[in-house]
């Protein structure tokens, strides 16, 4: 895996010597993000939305920390949830110590404790795992992940066995009279921490060591010749990633007031890889997009269907196959066309492709849901609700209908997609080029 990273991850940002206007614009972006976070709970009226947004905030911090490894450092980890989970467990234990007569530790400071916990274990495991990148790193991360997951079943004192460790955020002493009893109050805490953590992680990517992480990712040998220890650079990135994963874990402990072995297992590590990759590992905003979309789909789809994980898996594979640069890459791809003012010429071919793709998706979803229904319900039930229709699932007609939709849609995509691609190529040509 010492081969150069794919072109999409080699995206190098403009040098740090940005002009004043650039800096002001950047500051404006962060201020706008802060204002958006403040306004969100007032704009979104749905009461279910706040817990989902809390989950998103935690996922954003976690995914951003993961991308410090994968996107910026070129280290593919299969055990990043270890630092999230251990940070969370430590935060939960410390929160249990806090309270009247105990430790003076207000809730808003707690994510820092989780972060320090993550940092501690990242420094411990990173000391030997960052010696090499590539497959060796990936395998050690997998081994460490499995080791911690297995030990969580053995050391009940720390991990709380099957029921996990529960805690209570309302017992902690107050800071400036801030209470955290409702989801909305916790939302502001998570949003604040997510903004600060994202700003810090962005700043880290602009520091010399953050830049060197990119250099080591692209060509460790050359970085060594410039005089940097590739191992040390990887180690620093790894510790920083562990710290922010721990912060996310601390936020998790505050939000859910419970941590179980599941939070540091292989599935949690896989989920963060999924969301980061779907968002796009080559861009700083990629993991943010990925975490938001992933969490949204997770909470929405699980309400509608029992096989939502299958859909997520299909989406993930489609991303790897067709949009390896992720959602952020998809957006960035269209910047030249936007600057040239030709985005409008794309509307018609894109709409057409989207339409036939939707027909395909409807056909495939229909077939999958039919299979799910037939397999998982008793034979006495013959009809199911699907796409706002009542479908007789045990007759041939709906199967044929959905298969026809899928096939027709697929043919349509084969016809429309090259046209959309041609329109895209025409629109992204620099002005003046033939």
């Amino acid at each position, binding site marked *: *895996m010492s081969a150069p990273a794919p072109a999409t991850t080699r995206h190098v940002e403009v040098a740090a010597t940005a002009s004043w206007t650039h800096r002001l614009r950047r500051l404006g972006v962060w201020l706008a993000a802060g204002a958006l976070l403040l306004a969100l709970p007032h704009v979104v009226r749905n009461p279910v939305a706040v817990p989902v947004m809390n989950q998103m905030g935690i996922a954003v911090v976690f995914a951003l920390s993961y991308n410090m490894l994968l996107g910026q450092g070129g280290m593919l980890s299969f055990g990043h949830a270890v630092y999230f989970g251990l940070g969370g467990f430590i935060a939960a234990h410390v929160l249990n110590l806090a309270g009247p007569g105990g430790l003076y530790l207000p809730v808003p400071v707690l994510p820092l404790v989780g972060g320090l916990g993550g940092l501690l274990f990242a420094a411990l495991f990173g000391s030997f795992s960052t010696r090499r990148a590539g497959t060796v790193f990936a395998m050690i991360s997998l081994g460490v992940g499995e080791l911690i997951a*297995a030990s969580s079943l053995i*050391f009940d004192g720390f991990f709380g066995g099957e029921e996990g460790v529960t805690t209570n955020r309302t017992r902690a002493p107050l800071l400036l009279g801030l209470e955290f009893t409702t989801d909305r109050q916790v939302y502001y805490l998570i949003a604040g921490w997510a903004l600060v953590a994202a700003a810090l992680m962005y700043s880290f990517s602009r520091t010399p060591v953050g830049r060197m992480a990119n250099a080591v990712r692209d060509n460790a040998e050359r970085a060594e010749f410039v005089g940097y220890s590739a191992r040390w650079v990887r180690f620093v990135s790894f510790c920083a990633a562990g710290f922010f994963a721990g912060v996310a874990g601390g936020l998790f402990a505050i939000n859910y007031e419970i941590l179980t072995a599941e939070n540091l297992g292989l599935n949690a590590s896989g989920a963060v890889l999924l969301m980061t990759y779907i968002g796009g590992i080559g861009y700083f905003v990629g993991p943010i997009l990925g975490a938001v979309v992933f969490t949204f789909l997770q909470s929405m789809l699980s309400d509608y269907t029992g096989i939502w994980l299958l859909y997520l898996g299909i989406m993930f594979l489609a991303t790897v196959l067709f949009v390896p640069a992720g959602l952020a890459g998809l957006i960035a791809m269209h910047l030249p066309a936007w600057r040239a003012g030709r985005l409008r010429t794309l509307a018609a071919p894109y709409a057409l492709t989207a339409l036939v793709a939707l027909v395909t998706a409807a056909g495939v979803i229909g077939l999958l849901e039919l299979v799910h229904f037939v397999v998982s319900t008793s034979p006495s039930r013959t009809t199911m609700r699907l796409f706002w229709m009542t479908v007789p699932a045990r007759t041939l007609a709906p199967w044929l209908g959905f298969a026809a939709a899928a096939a027709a849609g697929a043919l349509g995509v084969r016809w429309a997609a090259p046209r959309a691609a041609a329109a895209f190529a025409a629109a992204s040509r620099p002005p003046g080029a033939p």
Partner: protein
Amino acid sequence: MLELALFSLLNGLVFGMLLFMLSSGLTLIFGMMGVLNFAHASFYMLGAYFAYTLGASVDFWPALLLAPLLVGGLGALVERFGLRRVHRFGHVAELIFTFGVAILVEEVVQLVWGRPAKSYEAPAVLDFALFRLADNAFPAYKGFMLLVAVGIFLFLFGVFTRTRAGLIIQASLTHPGMVAMLGHNVPRVFMVVFGVGSALAGLAGVIAGPVLGTFPGMAQVLGSIVFVVVVIGGLGSLTGAFIASLAIGVIQTSAVALDLSLGTTAASLGLPVDGGGALQDLWRVTIAQVAPMLPYLLLVLVLIVRPTGLFGTRET
């Protein structure tokens, strides 16, 4: 005591040979494409489920042949239309692609066969005790497993060292460019190796399903262990995979039988044991409980000391 040790050694051998059937394909695929195939254990799971379904309609014996063929064909398709496409995006994308395939297969298995374990049974013909050792019966089916695994091992060994196809495969491992120059279709060689590796994993699933259980998590349970085997043995090395398979198989099965803990060991040596405090679990834990951790501990240790694995020649 000796008989018990022999018995658990025999069990370890069966498990180890099973691991070899999986790891041989995985290590060859890695040697050729430079990518660790996360979906390899998924093909093992598909083998078990296909055999379960085929066994219900035809019989165990035709299924023993048909299921691996189906799985192999599926593997070849995944290589041809998935992996080859992702290849140009780099190794990380390939690895992540196989990771996605593994997730998808697990979900599809849950969709089609449901979450609960299937009662996939060994054929009645082999349902007797082959011999008894220290009051423990050794089932004939395990003997059959061992027989199949040894047969596969000899077959692989023969193909690799005695045939022209084996020669081309070996050459493609190290000098794909040169092999292509000589007029061989290297991408097709890759596809065939991927397919055969998947078929071997499928065969392992067919014969392991009745013993280790046929359930949607079976790929994850064995998948990580197979990784450990391949990495410890040295990526791309068949000899390494063979030795590491047997070692891990024996270590895991014998560790499960040991009921010693740090506390009891220290007590029997006459050392004072402090049973309280936050570390009390550390004294209580028995070797049997730690058994699932041992392969991973070994993996991390081997990678720290020797990143190429025991018999490997390269790191990535």
